[in-house]
């Protein structure tokens, strides 16, 4: 018998006429997530049923629980619609529960209205059947130690004991394509994840400063993308070398403005790359007011260089919430690896916190921007990072 997993989706069900598209995308993404397991993904009413080799059950659950659009999933046992079969399976499953979990309830969901017993009736029948065979058990509807759930569909029944939460959100690929500015810090991976959660196909752009920074800081970006790819299968990662630009800024411009000047150059490069790649928006890990570069004034002056839509999903989050999310996504330990990165390098003693646009532009007039951007774009390297 193959392992069967019932996959539920939340938000999609609400989307009216777009529903077909959403379901198709989610089904494709589920198949992609399981492509190395010889699994099948079958569409049912408001559900997907995944069947795959038993020995891969744990891995399949793990993969599916990261796919955006999935609300929750359960590994299930399948029976026919004969009540005696259902009772037998219920008994077998209750027998697998550790003996110290005594209080239980039965919960039935009947989408097949032809089934001769209504849900409360099924609950009662199965409940008493279990009590009869396992005298240690006791019904507790409020706080059961375990719940035996039954879903009755048009041609079969599914029984399960556990439920694993998925990330929710929308299937990746459904809302558009965006470029994530990925620094290697704690924030940007979380921002990227939130963008993907809203159905965006995300590509990532990492700036480095080799040879001032280590190849290991580039490896950080790759490793972070590998974690994010858990939700989408793969992420295209672009890397651009900022060393020449940073040298030039250091030589010609005011030290206090180094950060904002660098960030404006980064945005110009991100816009250029987005145009080349057909990406519609930028995603950054910016949050308000954490550091000098994130004052409202800094952000305003920085984003003046582009007309592109910039999404900042972390703007409503506290540092602590961001850190917790990063820990949950498994990117935190990667982000805190202590290598110099292109933003910690040449950090000025007293960065300006309230820059004025005309001052910034005066500084930029000292640079040969066009050739700097051309040189930086020539350093572009792209890799496809897979899950």
């Amino acid at each position, binding site marked *: 018998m193959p392992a069967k997993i019932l996959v539920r989706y939340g938000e999609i069900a609400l989307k009216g006429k777009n529903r077909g598209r959403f379901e198709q995308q989610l089904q494709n993404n589920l198949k992609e997530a399981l492509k190395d397991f010889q699994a099948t993904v079958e569409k049912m009413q408001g559900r997907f049923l995944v069947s795959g080799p038993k020995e891969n059950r744990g891995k399949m659950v793990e993969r599916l629980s990261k796919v955006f659009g999935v609300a929750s999933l359960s590994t299930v046992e399948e029976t026919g619609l004969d009540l005696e079969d259902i009772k037998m399976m219920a008994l077998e499953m209750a027998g697998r529960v550790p003996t110290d979990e005594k209080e239980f309830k039965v919960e039935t969901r009947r989408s097949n209205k032809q089934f001769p017993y209504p849900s409360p009736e099924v609950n009662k029948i199965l409940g008493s059947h279990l009590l009869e065979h396992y005298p240690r058990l006791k019904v507790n509807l409020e706080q059961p130690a375990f719940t035996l759930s039954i879903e009755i569909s048009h041609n079969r029944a599914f029984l399960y004991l556990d439920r694993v939460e998925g990330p929710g959100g929308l299937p990746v690929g459904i809302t558009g394509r965006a470029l994530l500015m990925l620094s290697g810090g704690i924030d940007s991976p979380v921002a990227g994840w939130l963008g993907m959660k809203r159905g965006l196909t995300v590509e990532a752009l990492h700036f480095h400063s080799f040879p001032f920074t280590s190849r290991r800081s580039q490896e950080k970006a790759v490793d972070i993308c590998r974690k994010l790819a858990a939700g989408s299968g793969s992420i295209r990662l672009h890397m651009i070398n900022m060393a020449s630009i940073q040298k030039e800024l*250091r030589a010609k411009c005011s030290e206090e403005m180094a950060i904002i000047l660098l960030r404006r150059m980064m945005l110009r490069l991100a816009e250029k790359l987005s145009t080349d790649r057909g990406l519609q928006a930028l995603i950054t890990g910016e949050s308000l007011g954490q550091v000098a570069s994130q004052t409202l004034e800094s952000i305003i002056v920085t984003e003046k260089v582009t007309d592109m839509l910039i999404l900042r999903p972390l703007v409503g989050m506290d540092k602590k919430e961001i850190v917790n999310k990063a820990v949950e996504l498994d990117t935190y330990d990667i982000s805190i690896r*202590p290598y110099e990165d292109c933003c910690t390098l040449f950090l000025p003693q007293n960065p300006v916190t309230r820059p004025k646009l005309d001052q910034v532009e005066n500084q930029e007039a000292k640079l040969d921007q066009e050739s700097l951007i051309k040189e930086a774009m020539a350093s572009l390297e792209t890799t496809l990072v897979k899950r």
Partner: protein
Amino acid sequence: MEEIYLDNSSTTRPYPEVIDFMGTALDKNFGNPSSLHQKGIEAEKLVEEARRRIASFFTDREDEIYFTSGGTEANNLAVKGAALRNRNRGNHLITSQVEHPSVLNCFRYLEQEEGFSVDYLPVDNRGFVDPEQVKKLVKKETIMVSIMHVNNEIGTVQPLEEVGPLVKDANPSILFHVDAVQSFARMALDINSWQADLVSCSGHKIHGPRGAGCLWAKKGTLLQPLFHGGGQERELRPGTENVPAIAGFGLAAKLTGESRQRKAAALGSLKLSFYQALENSGVELYVNGPLPENGAVHIINISFPGLPSEVLLHSLEERGIFASSGSACHSRKPEPSHILQTLGLSEERLQSALRFSFSFYNSEQEMEFAAAQIAEAVRELKSIFNP
């Protein structure tokens, strides 16, 4: 581009003879040394040949050599094995503040988890322990003293010929352990003058493979094994022998030990030429640890104030020169190494320290070339970092 490898205290390039020898051992002599048939006997012969080769650096007694997975395990077996097995005689231990983490963390474990009391000897600003101070710390409860031979980061050669006798005069039953990972086969180990009982060695520091090292334990020294199993290594280190690595370790020791004095003289003069050339270049530098003419012949640690060590390291890497900032085991931690901190160096010197370590694979021409490249890199980076 030509590569100049100056990180020989981290690991060394294996001898071609060792690679051939190990390949044959892996391919043809794959038997388990404990097996009674011909295949087992062939493999056992390789292990015993290696044991004889290693024993020749000590007392020629093969039954005093215990093969381990490397220096870390040898240090663990010596420090934890001796302390735990001999705790009936007392609970006081002495070591220095500049030991390798595989020694230091064993003592911290014994202190925090096993109820031992430990004294950590400070060192002077060149990294030397004061033998008189060791003597002062010895009490009647003292059961072990552990002091390394050559410091892995700064090359200090500890005055073990003074420390050992002072300890043994105070109480002959105190066990004296020496971590000789940096010096084994490269330098003479005068275990008689040291009056040592335990000496740790590693294969990959002497152009042998990773995965093999040994503990020399004087006949009669009582140790508790770290692992329990099938009785190999006279029950002190069970587990099927890593035959190819042990064989390679034995051959590497033999090759490294041959005409050692001539090689040491050559290495010493390499190091001094390197230092002289750097000094003549006129860049600002400070030697950390012992004076160049005093330290181990293959290690020198130098600060280039004003430049973060990681940045200089990568700039040298781009020029084909491989050095180390901190020791490789440390460089994933944010702080400067505990060893440099113990010397009481200024913050500026701590942040800008690089270690260069040499082997007979290096040549005089390389030294001059490397020094010139380093001077050039330092000047170039200074113009960017401190314009």
